[in-house]
């Protein structure tokens, strides 16, 4: 079999990853690499790398509630947008620097998520998904009509020297934003890893996801734990929303509160691998680049849109556990063949 060689490499990678300290080394190496990376990139590629970091962080934040806790949050983007607007309001109305906007956005959205989580987390499955989606749409519509967000005219965020609240030389440039995102994203990943893969808190979250009644009967306060995960994941999304707003300098409800923001997070987490640390990282990198590169480099056609659609369908069909599943060897040639065989079977409709 030709797959043997393949398999042994995969096994070796697996063996490496199985070592207790492997994740730590991987994280350290990744951090080092990402820290020096911008030195090799021009402004544009720094922006692209920055976008990758942003989306990896967002996908990871969705993965907390969606992947680990198993609650399909279709309104996660509301907090991304709320973070952006809170930051904008703090910086324009209160004339405080960005750092204050970032912190206030995080706190505000955590409180908002708590208030929303209490009633909404009583729902589950499709009900939760639709409720959060409707909530996010309502927030978007609200932002389009009220004054303080600039309504349909949107909001321009102050930029330039002195607006950051951190001693910077001159304007906050791409380097500044890159390292800001880097800190946020690595922080999110480290937090997710520590919380969900290494602590009893994470075991309890997974227990609730897999069998909520059994978890409750084992003394786990499911309501409280779900609420904590929800608040945490939403607050993180808000921090990214805030940083992104300061970076983009112009925020509009139709952009930062668009449903596509949530959809993209979900697809990244799912295609990468739900409920894993690696999944949202891989999914975030691949989907963001695919999306951005196709639109920037194939600028004269929209053919990439149907292709992305086909890609999404293909992954769901053949690699339901995402790219992480592929790396784990769950999507070999045999699996694809079996999938095709079973699919063909279902075409027996006459």
């Amino acid at each position, binding site marked *: 079999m030709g797959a043997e060689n393949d398999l042994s490499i995969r096994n070796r990678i697996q063996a490496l990853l199985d070592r207790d300290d492997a994740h730590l080394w991987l994280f350290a190496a990744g951090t080092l690499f990402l820290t020096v990376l911008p030195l090799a990139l021009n402004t544009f590629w720094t922006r692209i790398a920055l976008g990758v970091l942003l989306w990896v962080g967002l996908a990871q934040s969705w993965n907390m509630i969606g992947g680990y806790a198993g609650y399909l949050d279709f309104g996660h983007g509301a907090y991304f947008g709320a973070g952006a607007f809170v930051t904008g309001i703090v910086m324009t109305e209160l004339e405080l620097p960005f750092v204050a906007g970032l912190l206030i956005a995080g706190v505000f959205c955590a409180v908002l998520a708590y208030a929303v989580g209490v009633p909404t987390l009583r729902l589950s499955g499709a009900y939760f998904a639709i409720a959060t989606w409707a909530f996010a749409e309502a927030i978007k519509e609200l932002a389009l009509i009220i004054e303080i967000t600039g309504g349909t005219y949107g909001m321009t965020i102050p930029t330039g020297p002195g607006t950051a609240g951190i001693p910077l030389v001159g304007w906050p440039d791409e380097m500044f934003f890159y390292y800001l995102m880097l800190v946020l994203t690595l922080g999110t990943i480290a937090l997710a890893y520590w919380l969900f893969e290494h602590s*009893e808190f994470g*075991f309890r979250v*997974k227990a609730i996801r897999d069998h909520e009644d059994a*978890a409750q*009967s*084992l*003394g*786990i306060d499911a*309501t409280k734990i779900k609420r904590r995960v929800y608040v945490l994941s939403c607050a993180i999304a808000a921090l990214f929303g805030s940083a992104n707003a300061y970076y983009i300098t112009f925020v509009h409800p139709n952009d930062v509160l668009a449903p596509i923001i949530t959809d993209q997070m979900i697809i990244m987490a799912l295609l990468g691998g739900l409920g894993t640390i690696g999944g949202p990282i891989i999914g975030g990198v691949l989907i963001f680049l695919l999306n951005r590169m196709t639109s920037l480099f194939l600028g004269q056609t929209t053919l990439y849109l149907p292709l992305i659609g086909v890609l999404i369908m293909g992954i769901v069909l053949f690699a339901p556990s995402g790219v992480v599943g592929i790396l784990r060897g769950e999507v070999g040639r045999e699996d694809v063949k079996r999938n095709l065989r079973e699919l063909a079977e279902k075409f027996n409709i006459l």
Partner: protein
Amino acid sequence: MSETLLQTDGLTKRFGALTANDGITLGVDRGEIRGIIGPNGSGKTTFFNSLTGFYTPDAGTVTFEGTDITGWDSHRIARQGIGRTFQIAAPFGNMTVRQNMLAVQTPKSVDEHERAQEILEFLDIDHIADDDASGMSGGQKKLLGLGRVLMLDPACILLDEPTAGVNPALADRILDHLRDLNDDGTTFLIIEHDMDVLKQIVDTVSVLDQGQHIVQGTFDEVSTDDRVREAYLGSADEDEVPI
């Protein structure tokens, strides 16, 4: 007279027009093993769910170690010292056997890691402690289910068909574990259909029928009781087989 550990008084649970538990008054002594039997739909599982906070009773009270726990959240009841297992033993996925044990919200005073190890050894599944729990056999899953409950260090454990679907050899082993735990003072309530199993292990049996607690007594007393026979056999219409 021994001390009453768990007492229900007039416990009632309705679902729309159906009264699933109809004023159940039932006391369990500390250190007892109590069997709960009754025909299908007699309200046994509802009774467990009301006891453990999954249902809020419509009337009546539940008292445990002198504390009124009626209407408490299930996790709080669990922490108070009532553990339970489910008919279908499902381990939490994507986790090792040990992580399954550690997920349990143990009392603060307990060293979780130490306790998990002790229990796994006691149940003879410590050799697979760091294996993926989803790969266990059906019987091992039942043992893990029991092990997780023991992490709570409960005074009382409610078991829903602990040997159903388990081969006789392993079932015997599970029963041995239960006896050992009982010797150390743990109280059990067991729903079980298999009369042979019940006979081997219980001190007393409570019989439910149509949501009511109709009889309580030793296995022999109960099995010869007319009301019980009637509950199980019903009216023998010529055609309508009462099942």
